[in-house]
Every structure is written in structure tokens, then in C-alpha cells.
């Protein structure tokens, strides 16, 4: 485990752990999608990334439209409830700003790939894909025969990204991170990656973590960098902190459909901002309106 100080700015975390050509995962299923990290990657103008996510969502639409991406590995590429991802479409259909390659699975396939990666298994077996055309267009979906029953199952290869970026509600300075609400594949992504950046709404004392150890999803011993970034997921959300900005997801349809408006968005909200703190103050009241109400759980007893 790395022993020196892991607490750093997003600028420093991205410049240390995201390099041109890297395989990157920024996970979070609807919940805890770290837009702050993507914006910093765009600001640092990383190129030729292979970006992997179950749902590319707006976050990868932005990375693709900003020219950071060479290859997309995914399972569902839409703007949830609000249409297509137009920057992705432009890249695929017209090579704007650059052509990208697609590598396509289903959700279960992506979950299985990250689980294999986290387990340092070379593949993961699943009962899937028979009768589907997906294996026909993706030669990395193969089959394997059970040595006990003779059944043929599907197999997908491990996914071990160079760096995973996972957002958490809270973490201590060593990266022990606690998450509640939807868990997605945050744990699997962090364990699968060679390097992990934990971004947290709050940096808390180690005692807060130790008070409820079953809540820890990601242990500090696999974490390389810890970034404190309040509102770091907007327009995604953080349960107990702020709601999803559903209006922005709808607006994105118009923004991303038009290259000019897309670039204006990047100019104003990404390149025009030094960091997430500036984004938050630039957004002002529109973020404050999203702040979560209070719905506390009851404590449990860890005594013996």
C-alpha cells in the first residue's frame, strides 16, 4: 500500500494517473458519475483514451466530443430518457472530431468483465448470448464448456483498466471510501484497475469510517489518489447530498445535437473553469436547488 499522502487536487490526480492512450473507467450507474474527473481530463486534453462504462452517458459523450477518445467499450449508449448521445453519434457516423472504435457487450457482460478483472481471473463465465447477434460482431465474446456438466456457456475476457475513477459520498485521507444508495460496479472497477482515484463529496476522519466498517465499499489499500470534490457528480447525483439534474440531461439533447453548442458548452463549463469549485460557484443557485433533503437511517450496534 502506498504510504505517502494521497490527498490531492483533481488536477494532480488526473495528471498523475490518466495518460494519453490509457484504458480508463469512470463508473457509477446513474448515481455517483464523476463529471468533475471527466472535465479535468478534457482540460488536460488527454488523447487516444479507451474509455469503458456500462452506460457512456453524458460523461463519455463529452469526452468523445472533446476529442479525448479513441475507443469506447460499453453496453448501453443513450441519454437515459432523453434520446441519443449526439457527440458519440457524430464520432461514429462522421468521424467528428475523430473516428472512434466501438466494443460492445450487454450490461451483464460488462459487469462480468470487471468482476473477472477484480478477481484477476482471465475470463468470466455467464449463461448468456445464445441466440443473440452480439457474439457475431464482438469476437471477444467466446464460449466455454463446463467440465462438470458439459454445458456450453458464454465467456467474456477480464477488463483491467489502467485507472478507475470512482466517486463516493465520503472517504478518509487514505481512500477508505463509503458508498450507499446504488452501488453499480464501483467496487469491481476499483479492484480491477491498476490505479484507483477516489473522489469524495466529503473527506472524513478515519474514525467516521471505522464507526461503520460494513459501509466501506473500497478499501484505502487499493487507492492511489483521494480528491475532495463537493458536487463532483453534477448533473449526476449523490444520494444524501444532491439530486440528479434531470433538466440538464434533457437540455443535453439540444446541446450535444449541435457541434457549435457542444463546443460552447465545453468553453463555458469546462475550459472556462479552473476546477470543480469554480464550476459550482458558476452554477450557483441551480445547484443549491438540488441539495438533498434529510432521510436518516437508524444506527446499528457494533458492540460485543
Amino acid at each position, binding site marked *: 500500500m502506498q504510504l505517502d499522502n494521497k490527498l490531492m487536487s483533481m488536477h494532480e490526480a488526473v495528471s498523475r494517473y490518466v495518460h494519453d492512450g490509457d484504458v480508463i473507467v469512470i463508473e457509477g450507474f446513474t448515481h455517483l458519475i464523476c463529471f468533475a474527473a471527466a472535465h479535468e481530463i478534457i482540460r488536460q486534453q488527454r488523447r487516444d483514451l479507451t474509455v469503458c462504462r456500462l452506460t457512456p452517458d453524458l460523461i463519455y459523450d463529452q469526452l468523445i466530443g472533446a476529442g479525448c477518445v479513441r475507443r469506447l467499450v460499453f453496453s448501453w449508449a443513450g441519454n437515459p430518457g432523453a434520446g441519443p448521445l449526439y457527440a458519440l453519434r457524430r464520432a461514429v457516423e462522421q468521424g467528428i472530431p475523430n473516428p472512434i472504435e466501438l466494443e460492445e457487450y450487454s450490461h451483464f457482460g460488462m459487469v462480468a468483465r470487471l468482476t473477472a478483472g477484480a478477481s484477476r481471473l482471465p475470463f468470466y463465465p455467464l*449463461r448468456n448470448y445464445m441466440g443473440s447477434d452480439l457474439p457475431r460482431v464482438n469476437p471477444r465474446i467466446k464460449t466455454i464448456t463446463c467440465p462438470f456438466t458439459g454445458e456450453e456457456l458464454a465467456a467474456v475476457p477480464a477488463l483491467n483498466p489502467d485507472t478507475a475513477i470512482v466517486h463516493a459520498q465520503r472517504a478518509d485521507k487514505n481512500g477508505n471510501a463509503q458508498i450507499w444508495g446504488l452501488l453499480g460496479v464501483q467496487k469491481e472497477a476499483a479492484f480491477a484497475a491498476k490505479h484507483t482515484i477516489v473522489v469524495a463529496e466529503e473527506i472524513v476522519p478515519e474514525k467516521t469510517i471505522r464507526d461503520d466498517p460494513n459501509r466501506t465499499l473500497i478499501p484505502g489499500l487499493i487507492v492511489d489518489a483521494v480528491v475532495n470534490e463537493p458536487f463532483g457528480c453534477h448533473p449526476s447525483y449523490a444520494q444524501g447530498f444532491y439530486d440528479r439534474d434531470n433538466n440538464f440531461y434533457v437540455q443535453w439533447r439540444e446541446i450535444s445535437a449541435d457541434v457549435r453548442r457542444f463546443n460552447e458548452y465545453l468553453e463555458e463549463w469546462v475550459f472556462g473553469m479552473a476546477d470543480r469549485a469554480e464550476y459550482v460557484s458558476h452554477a450557483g443557485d441551480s445547484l443549491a436547488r438540488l441539495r438533498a433533503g434529510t432521510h436518516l437511517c437508524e444506527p446499528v450496534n457494533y458492540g460485543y
Partner: protein
Amino acid sequence: MATDKRDFTANELMVCEAARQLRDGEVVFVGIGLPNLACNLARRLNAPGLVLVYESGAVGAEPKRLPISIGDPSLVTDSLSVCSMFDVFSYYLQGDLIDVGFLQGSQIDRFGNLNTTVIGNYQEPKVRLPGSGGACEIAILAKRVFVIAPQTKRSFPERVDFITSPGFVDGNEARRKLGMPGAGPSMVITNLGCYEFEDGEMMLTSLHPNCTLEEVRENTGWNVRISPHLTTTKAPTIEELTILREELDTSHLFI
């Protein structure tokens, strides 16, 4: 208390009909939009013990607002359990726990195969669609599959351009031969009628009120089978419509 006045939308009818097909105590893999409305309607009427599982990991959700996305925070608060997506796909779906999976599709064909990947050729598509998400595994693993889809000649071709989520592939025996655990699509509900499957092939079993066989034929890309026992779909009741409009989707986002 049925109404035969045309004071409901096609979406409302589709939601009500889907809700009625759900049985009390079943475990349903739910999507956002019409499937979510159908399940929550069923929970208030015919299936109060229905358990809703969302692919995002929320189990037994009781959302206090209409969820906009599959990962809406209202699906988490006050749910019975939140688990990882590994658990959802490995233990719930592959674990044979899902009685009914809901699917939607840009295209559905004669054998119930669904396409949400591409219109046209995969390498150079006319339209690039979002892809599988969880649909492929739901189609293969859920015990029964309900499809809700608007019907046009283009969306109901004889064969889909790409099988994202297999139905009966090319006929009745394919699922068994391919070793698929689930029974496949059992019901397709469109804006025109309801379909079931006989020998793996789609068959119209009921026509919606005020819809005609001609409309069905005009909007189907093959010579569709008609059930010898064709009925008329029951119109939504006032009770169903009231719950839908005044409790579940008050701002008419989906209906």
C-alpha cells in the same frame, strides 16, 4: 367499471393491459417508463405482493415520485434492499429469480426477436441505437418476457436487422436447443393489439377497442397470424385510469 368511451391514450391502454397480466407475488425486472407504470399499477390492484427489481440494484422500491431514470434516487430511499449490479445480474437474473422481464424494442420480429442495436448493417448502420443494456440477458434468462412496443411496419419487420435480445430466434425449438433458461416472450402489447406466441411465432390474440385488423396488417411486416379466438382488449377502467393519472404519472410524462 369499464368505460368504452375513447377517453384514454394508447399508452394508458398498454400499461393497463400489461398490469393485468402480472400475478401477485411475482418478481419483476422493471424498466423505466411504461413498464414501471404497469408494475406500480398492478401493485395497487391485482398484485399487491409484486416485487420490483430494477437493474440498478433497487429491490422492492416504493418510489415517492415518478422515477425518471433507472437509477433515480427515489428507487433507493425506502426500498427493501439495494445491491450491486453483480448481485442483480448473477444472483437475481441468472439465479432464476425473475418471473417476468419487461423489454421494449425499436424493432421486434415475427419470432419475438428484439433489436435495440442498429437499423441497417452493423458496421455501417443507418441508425445507431443504444445497444443491449440488460435486454439481452433479460430475454434469455427471465422466466417470461413482456414486450411493450409501438407498432409500425418498420418496427415490426419479418426479421430484425440485428438480434440484440433473442425471442424464439427462428422458431419454436431454438430456445431449447440453444439452452436458454427462460421461456421467452409470452406477450407483446402494442398500440393496436396484444400478441402471444404459438410455435414460437407471434399471433394476434386481442385487438384494442377501435382498432381494426386492417390497421394491424398495414403495420406488420409479414402475414401475421390471427388467433381463432381473437378478442377485444378490455378498455382501461376508471379506477385504473384514476390511479395512473392522479397517483403514478401526474405530469403525464409517459402516458
